[in-house]
């Protein structure tokens, strides 16, 4: 890890979330401590172990999709494109956008698709060839899965849509974003459950550092609040319910009454770019990706290592890769799912790395308002972290009414706070024992 890396900058961010479908609304909601969690109303919950979710409201699919495409693509892919469009516009890549001519998803050769991308006559050839997409999901298009399986059960296999497979393949969003923007660099998806979005950012940065790409559209998305998924997560006893009848109190990381996470949905997208590429085209960096670290607990499918040493390793690797020491970190955006075990394991990892400094190291849990966007969580929370660095202000953790004594020595930010932050640490840990840590640096 001693080799000098090409520097990676963030030049665009885009979001679809339970607290806003664009970054200004999202960030303003977080700063004001507004929860996006409500009672589930799309299906009965009386036999489920959770009654709350953080759902996306007011997403206008018609802005991005034809009516037919809206039926083909699951919500997870729709959210991904919506967030990608905002991120690409912010990065100054709006002119790459190619709307579908007739709105189909899988076109034949002679039906009018724009297939001129990357040819000698394409004015955007250079950037198209140097840009890829790493857009990922943890669960995939669960809504489409449930719909088509039900269709097969009731009407037989001939009624199953030919679009079923391309719709539910986990790389569907990466393919769609690449098609819409004509991105011909490396594109695929990764999956690491709740660390998916974070790993996507790390892998995108790695591709740029290594010279495989100049720009990467990276992020994560999820839209898995469906009856079977809530049942499955609920039966692992990982989900919370409304507290005192109030759904907005259900997600309460580090509080004594935390009882599990809240299913969330949405998408977060970041445009990453080599610093030299961004500077050459006059783009303004929002932040640097200073480092990343990855590790695996390799112990249990759902339980984190109780001493947090897997996550600790990811943090230490990120700090080393960024050529920093723990004392350089000024803010932590933790994974903080609000599960009894997860929060403790994360605390132990942080304690092992930062020791007594935890007392003065500000930290705030974005999931207290967003719920857990699963495969989208790391990306959405990374955007919150980028906004923190940009504005030098920390959003609050809400619902910390009675902090668990275990965490008494952490500086948990409970009201919006101005701060001087150069380096911010973002953590994620997923089912399967997958850990990922990112370090973002304030843009200069």
């Amino acid at each position: 890890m001693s080799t000098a890396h090409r520097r990676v900058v963030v030049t665009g961010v885009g979001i679809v979330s339970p607290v806003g479908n664009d970054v200004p609304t999202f960030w303003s909601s977080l700063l004001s401590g507004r929860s996006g969690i409500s009672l589930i109303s799309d299906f009965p919950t009386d036999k489920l172990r959770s009654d709350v979710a953080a759902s996306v409201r007011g997403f206008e699919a018609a802005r991005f999709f034809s009516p037919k495409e809206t039926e083909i693509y699951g919500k997870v892919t729709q959210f991904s494109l919506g967030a990608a469009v905002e991120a690409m516009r912010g990065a100054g890549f709006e002119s790459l956008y190619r709307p579908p001519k007739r709105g189909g998803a899988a076109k034949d050769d002679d039906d009018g698709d724009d297939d001129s991308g990357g040819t000698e006559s394409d004015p955007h050839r250079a950037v198209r060839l140097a840009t890829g997409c790493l857009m990922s999901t943890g669960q995939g298009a669960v809504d489409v899965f449930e719909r088509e399986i039900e269709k097969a059960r009731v009407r037989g296999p001939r009624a199953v849509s030919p679009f079923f497979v391309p719709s539910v393949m986990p790389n569907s969003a990466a393919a769609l974003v690449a098609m819409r923007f004509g991105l011909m660099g490396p594109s695929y998806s990764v999956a690491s459950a709740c660390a998916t979005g974070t790993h996507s950012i790390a892998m995108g940065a790695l591709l740029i550092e290594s010279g495989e790409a100049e720009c990467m559209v990276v992020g994560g998305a999820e839209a898995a609040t469906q009856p079977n998924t809530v049942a499955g997560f609920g039966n692992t006893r990982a989900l919370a319910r409304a507290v005192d009848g109030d759904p907005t109190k259900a997600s309460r990381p580090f509080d004594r009454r935390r009882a599990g996470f809240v299913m969330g949905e949405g998408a977060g997208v970041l445009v990453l770019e080599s610093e030299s590429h961004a500077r050459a085209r006059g783009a303004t960096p929002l932040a640097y990706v200073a480092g990343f670290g990855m590790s695996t607990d390799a112990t249990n499918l759902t339980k984190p290592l109780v001493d947090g040493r897997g996550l600790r390793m990811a943090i230490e690797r990120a700090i080393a890769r960024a050529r920093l020491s723990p004392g350089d970190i000024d803010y932590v955006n933790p994974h903080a799912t609000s599960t009894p075990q997860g929060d403790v394991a994360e605390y132990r990892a942080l304690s092992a790395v930062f020791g007594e400094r935890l007392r003065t190291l500000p930290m705030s849990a974005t999931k207290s308002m967003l719920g857990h966007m699963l495969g989208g969580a790391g990306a959405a929370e990374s955007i919150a972290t980028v906004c923190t660095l940009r504005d030098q202000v920390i959003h609050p953790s809400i619902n910390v009414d009675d902090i668990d004594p275990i965490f008494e020595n952490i500086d948990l930010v409970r009201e919006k706070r101005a701060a001087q932050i150069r380096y911010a640490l973002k953590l994620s840990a997923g089912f399967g024992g997958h850990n990922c840590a990112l370090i973002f640096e304030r843009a200069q």
Partner: protein
Amino acid sequence: MANRDLLEMFKTVAARVDKREFPNVTKQSVITELGIDSLSMMQIVGEMESELGIMIPDEDLVELVTVGDLCAKVEKRL
């Protein structure tokens, strides 16, 4: 089912699948000129098979040129 009814069924199913109307489609309409991509065409076939409780063999599908061809293949299986 009469071939004319099958034509109406095609128009109804195609509208549902492709989210647009096909008012001027006749039995002579060439499928590739309707702007329906190949996967959507298979979706239309599957919907008709499912609704009518029939199965059209793959070899019959490669010969389809017009909407009338499809209607004839469907009628043969009724």
